[in-house]
């Protein structure tokens, strides 16, 4: 099975406290720690396990800039066979539809049975996989937390739905799936693994390589745009307890007693 996994380099929500820049219109990006989007690691792990069972290869792909190469190498250290970087100044300012159009152009040049994405990334929209599928006229399922291969034409997938329930579907290949966390346990990647793939060549493709019209992607092609970032005024929020640990615990116990907690 030939599997393509779309990944993204994102600010790590576990490692950063997000602040706005001086102008207040963007994040202060100077000291941000970036990593692979958490959901994407589950997608890559799933792809590697499927290929281990059924043969084939895993290709990881991203739309980004030079710095995005590091996330491709990390996923290749996990076990992905190939990496492709889609980078071009003309891609800047793309909305979800633009990113999907860029990915679609590259996907059409290959012959993939299965295309995986993470269920969502830093922006939380969860949109690119479903858009790519619609553009290719492939079937799609989102929030997938189980994949069983039936034969080389069909797979059975479980989708995570509300209330901890699971929706089972049978889907014809080729198809696009967005992968939910928890589907597997992504393997650990050590320094040695990264070193092994440090020299592997990763092709970089731009607008002309992909046969794209520059006006259809990037800011020029975007129908949706982020205007700014802001921190909303949420009113008073929580009453913050301060002081020594003993003082805090004393106050907390009174409040717990008053509210039925003790």
């Amino acid at each position, binding site marked *: 099975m030939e599997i393509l996994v779309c990944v993204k380099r994102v600010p790590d929500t576990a490692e950063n406290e997000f602040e706005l820049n001086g102008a207040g219109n963007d994040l202060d990006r100077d000291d941000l720690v970036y990593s692979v989007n958490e959901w994407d690691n589950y997608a890559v792990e799933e792809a590697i396990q499927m290929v281990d069972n059924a043969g084939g290869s895993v290709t990881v792909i991203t739309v980004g800039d030079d710095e995005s190469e590091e996330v491709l190498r990390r996923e290749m250290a996990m076990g992905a066979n190939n990496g492709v970087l889609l980078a071009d100044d003309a891609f800047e300012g793309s909305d979800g539809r633009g990113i999907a159009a860029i990915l679609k152009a590259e996907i059409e040049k290959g012959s993939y049975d299965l295309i995986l994405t993470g269920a969502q990334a830093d922006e939380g*929209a969860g949109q690119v996989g479903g858009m790519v599928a619609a553009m290719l006229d492939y079937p*799609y399922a*989102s929030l997938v937390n189980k994949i069983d291969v039936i034969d080389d034409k069909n797979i059975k997938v479980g989708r995570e739905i509300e209330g901890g329930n*699971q929706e*089972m579907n049978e889907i014809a290949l080729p198809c696009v799936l967005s992968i939910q966390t928890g589907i597997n346990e992504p393997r650990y990647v050590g320094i040695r693994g990264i070193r092994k793939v440090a020299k592997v060549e990763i092709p970089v493709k731009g607008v002309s390589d992909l046969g794209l019209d520059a006006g259809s992607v990037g800011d020029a092609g975007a129908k949706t745009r982020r205007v700014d970032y802001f921190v909303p005024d949420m009113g008073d929020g929580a009453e913050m307890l301060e002081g020594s640990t003993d003082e805090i615990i004393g106050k907390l116990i009174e409040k717990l007693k008053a509210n039925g*907690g003790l």
Partner: protein
Amino acid sequence: MTQIFAYIPFTNGQAEDVALEFPAAAQKIDAGATLTAVVTGAGSDLDSVATEMAKIYGQVIKVDNEALAYPNAEVVRKALVNIIPNDAVLLVAHTTFGMDIGPGLSVKMDAAYAADIIDFEGIEGTTLKMIRQELGGAVSTHVTADIAAGAVITVRPGAFAPVDGGSAGGTITDKSADAGDLTSTRKFLEVVEAEAGDVDITKSDVLVSVGRGIEDEENIEVAQELAAAMKAVVSCSRPIVDAKWLEKSRQVGTSGQTVKPKVYMAMGISGSFQHMGGVKGNPFIVAVNKNPKAPIFQVADVGIVTDILEFMPELTEAVSSL
């Protein structure tokens, strides 16, 4: 004039709460817009929802077809492409169904797409201004969409104040004949219900709920000890279940259990909307988190900025000696 359509999700003939929230969202998009509810399904369940919606919406479109009896996103998408006018704004709930259908539907309608919108700030020309969140709720953003060729917008359930269900006296139009070809390459098989776990967290008045801040599987014990001292039960957020440190049945959130305790102790939980969506009944919320900017402090009653691994044992000892 803007035409707005709202796709009404329902189960067992009962519309979801968001059906009462779409009219408030539509009002904020364009107070002069026409608003139409769209219900798709099959048989008597569909009819009862359509009748209910006619009390809230001035116009209701229903599409009745056996292929729509279960809301398979691919099939519903095919029907909506044929029913919704090309330049309309379609509102869908940002649920597991909304995430499934929204992006592809926007492509097929060649419309703008905006996901998980929590507020609207009106239209200028053909530019709609909206608010959404990024990075797990850590920051908010203003976004714009050019809706000249229509838009598909998923709105976050609970973000808009529900309107009073009343007596709109709406008309129901049957567009079943316009749905077109509803064959599908994705076949719905069944819904597998969540397994019951060793404890029922929905039955406990006090929950000690742990998130990423617990850091390691071994530290779960620290939370168990606090819960024992408080005669409470341990629940958790999604990452703890993903790491398989606790059973799925202990997960609080939209993809886990919905709980209604008296007191909710959020220990090292950042407080994403998916997590807080499972905390109902307005409990007294205590949040302990190292990060003073964690979104949980915006919804908690009491907050403490500290490391839960140091704080929980101290609290356990203090509670035990009462």
